[in-house]
């Protein structure tokens, strides 16, 4: 249970920068998720905290102690790996007790802590089994148990659910969340799955090419993405990004999407767009709603398009159409039959549209 602090943390492999000047404070008991596409430096960051990767620059503090020069064994953090990395030659019990045995903890104490961990994770029946006799989910549980018995200052999870099938992943996700609530420990969790990040995290860090793109609560990064990258990375399906020209017409600002769609700029954003000619609009699929009106005159942000593809998912149907050769997705709740080629009227919720600068790709408003 401890605070973890990273100051100007940098990792370079030759000329390649894996992590650049990362500054971050992870507070006590926080569940922090590092998320990003592969190669963004999230796993490297985690491995540097664990001490498995040498750092090229900066400082790491765990429990206010500088640990740069400390071996992994002296950092008192536990790591759970994607491939579980259970010791194949030991039983579940031995796997769980191994770290305590190495630390020369008394036998009764080891037994007690292993018993506790086994209970917490529901592994009672499997105590005497070897890892090869366990299913994927059970192995994952043992790997977590091994981390728990040490009572570390922080847990480090490196994509722990990636090897599980979809159903088990959802189940284990809930278990990890419950475990955090039970143990009240600092957890740093790495994943490339934004759903995992959203559901688990107290705070999400979105990384790209070794840099932090945004830090915030799940709701924050979803509703107020800092830039196009975050906007398209968080949320499923990804946010629609549409290019638009800013045109001045009779004292009004018009956003011209294509020949058919010209949208009147909302009042609140007009001042921000005044000296721009081009912007990107970010609209989530649920904010482009099919409307049963005959109004497709662009007033109230309505327009009409013909459908290329409809994917019924039960509670909703995702409608695909194109604007300027870019595929746009709309979510239709209260599904009804839609055929390819059908002309459908849509309305964009202009209050929920995100505006991004065309050059910096950062949020304007």
């Amino acid at each position, binding site marked *: 249970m401890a605070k973890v602090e990273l100051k100007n943390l940098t990792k370079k492999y030759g000329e390649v920068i894996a992590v650049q000047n990362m500054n971050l404070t992870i507070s006590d008991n926080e569940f922090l998720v590092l998320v990003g596409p592969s190669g963004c430096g999230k796993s490297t960051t985690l491995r540097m905290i*664990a*001490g*498995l990767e040498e750092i090229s620059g900066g400082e790491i503090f765990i429990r206010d102690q500088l640990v740069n020069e400390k*071996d*992994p*064994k002296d*950092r008192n*953090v*536990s*790591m759970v*790996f*994607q*491939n*579980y*990395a*259970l*010791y*194949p*030659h030991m039983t579940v019990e031995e796997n769980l007790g*191994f*770290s305590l045995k*190495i*630390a020369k903890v008394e036998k009764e104490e080891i037994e007690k802590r292993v018993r506790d961990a086994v209970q917490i994770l529901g592994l009672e029946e499997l105590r005497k089994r*070897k*890892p*090869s*006799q*366990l299913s*994927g989910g059970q*192995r994952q549980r043992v790997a977590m148990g*091994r981390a728990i018995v*040490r009572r570390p200052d922080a847990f*480090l999870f490196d994509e722990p659910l990636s*090897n599980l099938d979809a159903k088990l992943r959802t189940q284990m996700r809930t278990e990890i969340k419950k475990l955090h609530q039970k143990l009240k420990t600092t957890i740093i969790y790495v994943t490339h799955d934004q759903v995992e990040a959203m559901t688990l995290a107290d705070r999400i860090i979105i990384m790209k090419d070794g840099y932090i793109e945004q830090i915030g609560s799940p709701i924050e990064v979803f509703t107020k993405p800092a830039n196009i990258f975050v906007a398209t990375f968080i949320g499923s399906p990804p946010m629609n990004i549409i290019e638009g020209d800013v045109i001045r017409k009779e004292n009004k600002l018009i956003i011209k999407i294509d020949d058919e769609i010209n949208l009147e700029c909302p009042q609140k954003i007009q001042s921000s767009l005044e000296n721009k000619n081009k912007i990107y609009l970010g609209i989530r699929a649920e904010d482009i709603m099919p409307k049963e009106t005959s109004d497709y005159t662009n007033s109230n942000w309505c327009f009409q398009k013909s459908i290329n593809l409809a994917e019924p998912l039960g509670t909703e149907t995702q409608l695909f159409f194109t604007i300027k050769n870019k595929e746009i997705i709309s979510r239709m709740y209260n599904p009804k039959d839609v055929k390819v080629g059908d002309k459908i009227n849509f309305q964009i919720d202009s209050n929920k549209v995100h505006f991004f600068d065309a050059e910096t790709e950062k949020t304007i408003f």
Partner: protein
Amino acid sequence: MKHIKKISFWFLVLFLLILICLPGIWIFVSAFRPNPEILSKPANWIPDRWTIHQFTQMFSINGYVSVPAFKYLMNSIIISSVSTVIAITIGMMGGYAFARFNFRGKNKIFLGLMLARAVPGISLSLPLFILFAKLGIINTSFGVILVYVAMNVPFTIWLTDGFFRQIPKEMSEVARTDGCTRLQAFWNVELPLAGPGIGAAAIFAFLLSWNEYALASIITRTVHSKTLPIGMMDYLDEFTINWAGMCAIAVVMIVPALILTFIVQKHLVSGLTFGGVKG
């Protein structure tokens, strides 16, 4: 038709088996019969009289020793065991280093080691002889051990490197976050997992030393350092050859080698790491 095909196939297999095993069988049979019978023409396939005379004489149970086979056997055991222990210890560490660490010139050094294996040992015999003579270690067990260690280290490095590579590196990483030093992680986790592989490499190294003839024939001179393969030549006299004695000493050589080969065979089938990682 199908049956004929099957039967003729098995006959072919039997024929080939006999062809391969015949020299071995002949050695075993000849070791247990009197010398004149070996030379009889036509060949006498099944001995008229079985005897362990050659063995009793070889191990001097009757007090008379023509060939000090027991001493040779001890030399062989000591030289092969010591050289194997040293070679596998160095080889294991080398193999681990090649499998786990990145260092400058890694591939070149590895290639160099493999090239060293490609040099025919016998071509080194003369330089070795001169060098050892000057160092004063000719005709000593130490000298032979030195040669066998040099011969076996590249081989054991190559084998153990492969075995360590099969163990996911997360194994040692998780052990290190579990509170192990690098050495403890190696000792408690990676070594037990690579154990069967290392054992197999050790047995291979032992067999190479046990059977080696060419270099030993140059650097061993007397009973102090001669190994069994070299000792076998003691049965060659100026005018006679004691075939039965030779066969007997060959049996003494073959039996341990055969047993060890069976052990290797069993250990090479190792699925031990399965289950530790995803599956």
